[in-house]
């Protein structure tokens, strides 16, 4: 399986508690950002991040809930970039909760940046851009 951005954290709380922090707007706002999230497949919500003007990124992220398995898995699309009509970032965010002893292992994957996987590896390696390649490969687990 190919992964892109991935982080894993272990918490002492149960999956039920961690799940609340992923799905309750007021709790989500405490660590992620202000939001109008609802745990309903097909629900569209918007997040605001710091704008990145260099990349024409206004900081607005448009999401849609794609999958919900209570206390186990949450998937939403993550689009943003130039505009709502023409999103350049077309990616998905996957949360996985795994019970662990008395706590929870929370895994975040941010992947599916269109066009990344199949071509970059080849091109970068071919040109010997090892420095860029190594980091990108590590992050994307393309190796």
């Amino acid at each position, binding site marked *: 399986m190919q992964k892109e951005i991935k*982080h894993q954290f272990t918490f002492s709380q149960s999956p039920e508690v961690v799940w609340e922090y992923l799905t309750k707007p007021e709790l989500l706002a405490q660590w*992620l950002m202000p939001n109008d999230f609802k745990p309903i497949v097909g629900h569209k919500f918007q997040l605001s991040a710091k704008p990145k003007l260099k990349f024409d990124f206004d900081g607005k992220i448009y999401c849609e809930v794609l999958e919900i398995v209570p206390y186990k898995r949450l998937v939403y699309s993550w689009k943003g970039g130039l505009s709502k009509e023409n999103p350049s970032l077309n990616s998905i965010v996957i949360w996985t909760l795994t019970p662990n002893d008395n706590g929870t292992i929370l895994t975040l994957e941010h992947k599916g*940046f269109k066009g*990344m996987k199949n071509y970059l590896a*080849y091109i970068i390696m071919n040109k010997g851009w090892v420095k860029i390649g190594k980091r990108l490969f590590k992050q994307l687990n393309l190796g």
Partner: protein
Amino acid sequence: MAIPTLDAFQVIADPSRRQILQLLSKDSLTINSLAENFEISRPAVSKHIKVLNDAGFISIQNIGRERYCILKQDGFKELQEWIDYFDGFWFSKLKKLEILLNKKANNK
């Protein structure tokens, strides 16, 4: 024809442009010899080349009487910056969540 400014992800989202990059990763090519690899019209290929050039994925150099397309690192660096940006974004957000949950655990 006006060509909108595209960012790195939009640039590589197009299959023809990815194919151009792939061809150029083996060897620098003239616009004509690149166009021979495509069913699409020569102006369409030229448009893709312009997009790639504007986004820093290739440069165009005049060698003799020919215009050569050469792969360039800048566009790929921008992709790297995006990945770094979101990687860092999630890490700092998750750290925040960790602090929140630790606090909650200690307050019990």
